[in-house]
């Protein structure tokens, strides 16, 4: 009478880079074909996601089993969606090569991607999230803007659920009666048990940015395309700060701050490495926010693997 338990396809969560990259709670499926999830602070249970943005970084690495492609899509919240295409996905390699050629010729373009959540855990227990690409395509602006609107709605729905949950006990029944939609309850319970309290206003700011882009003339998205193109040439490091307002300072291209960090470390005479604080100081002096500098250092250490931290708080270039 019972047929074997089947897992139905997981729906593609609409999520901004900001919310996904903040998440550090994996929920590993147990057993064959059981889906795994990343649980965000707002309680989204992400196994599959639909996301988009301007291509910000794209590269190929050759490995023993074939090429791995990795890249970033930067969305309107200023964050980046990290994604990979694995050697065992040969059906995507032809399209990836085409993208790579375009990217390397200096072209920047909007993309939409469907990806599966993945993560890795660093030695010190940090969780780093990204996506493995499932399908992707380059899109015209209106398709991307449509995603911004849909993702704004999805994020507002989660924010609303989060706010309704604040007064409520962290159980299925209480959350249900507090008005948390059924599909968010499980993730909400896990999130509230895991994350310490945070200010959801940040996510709202991301939503407002996205909605204003959807409503305003398309110049801002064009601006995004232009500013990323500029960032590929390291010379134009500070031009952006004039065009972008305070809220958008986060979205300053990371390429520049990386250069500052690498230069500081390279030019240091200290063989033990450069202290964390002096790197951050150099970045702040160069006009970057403290927060984005700290993120960039982590990024260089954990994702791009260009620097190492042989001793806590001291950094060297990884040769």
């Amino acid at each position, binding site marked *: 009478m*019972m*047929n*074997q*338990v*089947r897992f*139905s*396809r997981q*729906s*593609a*969560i*609409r999520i901004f880079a900001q919310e996904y990259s903040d998440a550090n709670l994996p929920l590993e*499926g*147990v*057993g*064959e074909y*059981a889906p795994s999830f990343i649980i965000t602070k707002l309680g989204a249970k992400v196994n*599959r996601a*639909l996301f*988009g943005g301007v291509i910000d970084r794209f590269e190929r690495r050759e490995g023993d089993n074939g090429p791995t492609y990795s890249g970033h899509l930067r969305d309107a919240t200023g964050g980046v969606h990290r994604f990979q295409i694995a050697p065992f996905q040969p*059906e995507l390699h*032809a*399209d990836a090569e085409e993208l790579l050629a375009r990217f390397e010729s200096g072209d920047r373009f909007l993309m*939409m*991607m*469907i990806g599966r959540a993945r993560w890795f855990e660093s030695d010190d227990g940090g969780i780093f999230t990204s996506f493995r690409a*499932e*399908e*992707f*395509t*380059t*899109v015209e602006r*209106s*398709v991307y*803007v*449509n*995603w*911004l*609107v*849909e993702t*704004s*709605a*999805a994020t*507002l*729905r989660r924010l*609303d659920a989060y706010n309704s949950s604040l007064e409520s006990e962290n159980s*299925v029944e209480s959350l249900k009666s507090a008005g948390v939609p059924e*599909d968010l309850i*499980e993730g909400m319970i896990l999130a509230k048990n895991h994350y310490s309290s945070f200010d959801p206003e940040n996510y*709202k700011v991301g*939503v*407002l940015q996205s*909605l*204003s882009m*959807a*409503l305003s003339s398309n110049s801002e998205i064009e601006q995004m395309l232009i500013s990323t193109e500029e960032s590929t040439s390291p010379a134009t490091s500070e031009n952006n700060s004039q065009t972008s307002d305070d809220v958008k300072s986060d979205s300053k291209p990371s390429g520049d701050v990386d250069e500052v960090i690498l230069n500081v470390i390279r030019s240091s005479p200290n063989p033990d490495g450069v202290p964390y604080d002096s790197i951050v100081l150099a970045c702040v002096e160069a006009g970057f926010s403290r927060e984005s500098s700290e993120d960039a250092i982590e990024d260089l250490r954990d994702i791009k693997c260009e620097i190492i931290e042989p001793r806590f708080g001291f950094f060297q270039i990884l040769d």
Partner: protein
Amino acid sequence: MTDKERYAVQIALVKEECKEVDEDEVAKEFERYENEFLIPPNDAVRSVILKFQKVSGKETESFPGTTARVEKKVDRFKELGSDDKNVTLEVAVVTYVPRVQMVRGEEKQIAFGWIEDNPWESTDKRERWDFKDWGAHSENLRPNSIVRLEGVSVNEWNDKRSININRGSRVTVLREGGPAVPTLSDEPVSIEKASENEGYVNLLVRIISLKPDVITKRDGSGTIDIFRGTLADSSGKISFLSWVPVDHKVGDLVKIEGAMIRKFRETPEVNVNDRTKIEKFHDSNFANIEDLSKATTSRISDLRNGMKDVIVTVQVESWQSRTFTNSDGEEKIVRSGDVMDPSGRCRLTAWCEIEPKTGDFLHLNGARVQFWQGSPDLVVDNSEQIQNLTEAPWDAINPENHWVQITLSDLVNGGSRRGVKTTGTIVAVKNDSGIIERCPECKRILRDGSCQDHGPQHGVEDLRLKFVIDDGINNASLILGKIPSEKFLSMTQEEVKEQISQRGKEDFIALIRNKILARKVVINGRSLVDNQGAMILAENIHLDTSTNEDAANLVMEQWGVLL
């Protein structure tokens, strides 16, 4: 005198309990007790027996409460003994049925069901046992979940073993299952709530219809007299089947204790047996039979396979009759047509003589619902069930553009429906989109040039596209047949074939991806929903044309956001 001779009496006693012991060993032991532990042989007998039982691996007789209970960890049910306690094992929960049981004069909330061992393997490699839950673990023992049970015990009764999950047992969820089965209460529940799950319930309902019926046993060994009917309360109605005579009449308000909800096809049904208590109830505020009959009129969108006694009004779109010869060689006429109401459309089959015209309104009373090609269709068996209305219940629907708009979530969570329109984003283009070959006999898709039923065949080429449509919360497979595919691609089947042969299948898929992936689309078609998920057969697909500005304004309005 050797030790063996000296302790002969005691050794004989030990040998009665432990047959395979070495007499020299036992003698040595008694000597040791006597000389080392200063215990005379007669007093040492018990200790020596225990020692040798332990050595030989036999279960020792322990004194209740004096020894700590040892946890027994097993993988399979077959490793369990009939009186094992404190057992740990992993199982899959198959069913969970709560009920109230009298235990030592007290009403206790318990539950029973099926569990299977070896839960990570396919079902044919598992063994299934009954279990009883004495500890109200309904939250964790959800059907379809996999759990680790700790501190459970084996129960044997009439040579059948089962697992007792006790108050002190621990249940750890290893893999999530379906929704939790709500715990029972003595309070009657509404029909709407009772219909959500199978299991025991108490109901407070009015009998809307009741008639004796006969079930013919499949093996031909005879018949069983039963009663069928319909029950209603303000939340809805439900059919019931009683295996025992019902001493109440139509219109009576009754309290039913210990009724079993079972699903017949997709429709829940109340089962009444000799353990069910039905008694008359008095409540002058309870809705009367006229109101309840009115309230239980269905719309086409409510129809589910297996429903009976359906009251529904439809508008006729087309009507045909067909003559065929049945298996007994009789010539029969079946009439059928397409019908609509404001909630959707379906087919109506009549096994009686009616000839409605296009545009007629028919009121059906007592129709049943059957699946045909995956859609719930109405069936009427005699003309008394049909009333041709002279007055239109609604402004005549134009069949040309009668599409009922529903959200993708409502579509996925509802029943199979025709004539629906929905919106979502394409999140996958399946690689088997394109030209396929079908069996000329049965139209099934050929695999490697061969049909599952009809062997190797010269296939008939066909065109279809397969996508996944998704709204961020739910998703469904989306299939476009030849005509909507050609329209969507602006290419004929021949042109598609030409392109694939020239530029390859991957190029063709990439072309479709560029055209539709991550785009919002509007679909007209019909839905097939079963426990494997939802599938939409599209008759038409086009890109959503609403502007992003409008959409953004709508979002801000809905969530009260200002820029």
